[in-house]
């Protein structure tokens, strides 16, 4: 059991990276982005391209990096992929969602068009990389370390949790202490008043997509490092992401972090009783229960 909880925290920090982006975007533009999981896949595959093709072509050797299963190339690929997916998210907003916003489209139209965006991303991945599972470094042995309580954990997994939390702390500092971060929170609170205060809300929306996309990319890469790459990986994350965001009160990034960890742990612990294939169902059931019992989530007070 302690081992499953540990794995749950690893999975949970990956879910949290996606859920925070989802909740951030929802908080500002009230828009449930069904393509968010596929942004995670995009991040994982862009990093794969950089590691196995681009950096190989440039001639940078993939020397081992500490005790980890990936090499130096991944250190370069990671930020490149975050920036690339941030751009993808922003481009989708500029060519698609912004038009819908200016027409005053309803929630269903937004949901449908983001579903379309999700399919486009997945199809591109399928066409370019095929349907098989892929690895950043095929054939790597991935030895585990022994921790107390009989927990076996791979160095990769420790690093995944550290990277996820570092990114989240970084986001926290950005939102709390920079002018742009404060303006983002102000816009999420009250877009009309933000406009009245002279805040360029379109610019805020671009930043929001960029941050959401970059965090999704990070989550996707970390999952790729931990498990494998699969064109449907992000899509399969969609329900855990929504469950985490709703559990933690939609719009609340700290809630999304906590929700992500809870969903991750619940999914892993469930494998002690259920077949692992039921993991997504666990997230789904938790989501349904929250929606029935406490639709505003853990931190939902009087106002949304």
């Amino acid at each position, binding site marked *: 059991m302690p081992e499953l909880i540990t794995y749950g925290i690893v999975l949970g920090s990956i879910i949290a990276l996606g859920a925070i982006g989802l909740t951030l975007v929802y908080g500002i533009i009230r828009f449930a982005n069904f393509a968010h999981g596929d942004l995670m896949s995009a991040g994982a595959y862009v990093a794969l391209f950089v590691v196995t093709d681009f950096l190989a072509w440039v001639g940078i050797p993939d020397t081992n990096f500490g005790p980890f299963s990936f090499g130096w190339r991944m250190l370069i690929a990671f930020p490149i992929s975050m920036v690339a997916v941030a751009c993808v998210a922003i481009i989708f907003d500029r060519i698609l969602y912004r038009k819908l916003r200016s027409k005053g489209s309803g929630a269903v139209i937004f949901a449908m068009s983001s579903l379309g965006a999700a399919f486009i991303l997945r199809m591109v991945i399928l066409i370019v990389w095929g349907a098989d599972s892929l690895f950043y470094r095929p054939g790597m042995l991935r030895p585990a370390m022994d921790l107390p309580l009989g927990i076996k954990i791979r160095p990769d997994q420790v690093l995944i949790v550290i990277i996820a939390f570092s990114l989240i702390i970084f986001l926290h500092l950005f939102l709390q202490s920079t002018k742009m971060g404060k303006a983002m929170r102000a816009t999420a609170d009250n877009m009309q*008043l933000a406009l009245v*205060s002279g805040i360029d809300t379109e610019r805020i929306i671009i930043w929001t997509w960029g941050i959401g996309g970059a965090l999704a990319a990070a989550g996707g890469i970390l999952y790729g490092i931990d498990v494998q790459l699969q064109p449907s990986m992000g899509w399969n994350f969609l329900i855990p992401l929504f469950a985490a965001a709703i559990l933690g009160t939609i719009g609340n990034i700290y809630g999304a972090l906590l929700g992500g960890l809870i969903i991750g742990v619940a999914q892993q612990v469930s494998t002690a009783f259920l077949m692992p294939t039921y993991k997504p169902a666990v997230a789904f059931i938790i989501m349904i229960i929250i929606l029935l019992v406490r639709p505003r989530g853990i931190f939902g007070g009087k106002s949304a």
Partner: protein
Amino acid sequence: MIVLKVENVTVGYTAVDILHGVSMEAKSGEIVSIIGPNGAGKSTLLKAIFGLLKPHQGKIILNDEDITGLKPDRIARKGISYVPQVDNVFPSLTIQENLEMGAFIRTDDFSQRLEEVYDLFPVMRERKKDKAGQLSGGQRQMVAMGRALMLDPQVLLLDEPSAGLAPLLVADIFEKVKEINATGVVIVIVEQNAREALKMAHHAYVLAMGRNVMDDKGEVLLADEEIGRLYLGG
């Protein structure tokens, strides 16, 4: 000297006009009150001045410059600030952050201005780390006004700052409005507390059904029998 002038403005939210050729003006140093029944179009007039609604006809002039149709952030840069009737603070931001957002378009050092605003509302200084959403109605109005003052505006548009407040607090708010005015800020204030609003007004306008009904010195309207009967509750 006329600072703000609204000339014959016709405006609405959709194709339907709400204001039909409304005019008003505010001279330097003045408090101008706008009163009238619910739905008269008082809030609509302030939104039109601040560029949130685009007039179909007529002009809005600030210091002899035509500002009709400019976007709110442009108008804010020209020296007008606006406090909406409802939802006029950022609830999850602290008081200090609310004020910082008021200064968002400033690129200079506004710490001096921040201190001046805190001097005007000392309670806010004590509670600057508190979230605006936790404040009482009266304190929220003060934060809302403070936010609008951060740009050091020439004209301050206030939409019912006393709405829903206990009588004692209403007096407080009006006291603050007079203090702000005494620092040289022209005030255009919409009020339901019409009697109080007329008392402090240098000049006042009565609107009904989207049209000017009457305008005069505050004390003249206060003494007017018909105004008293129709708009001041007898």
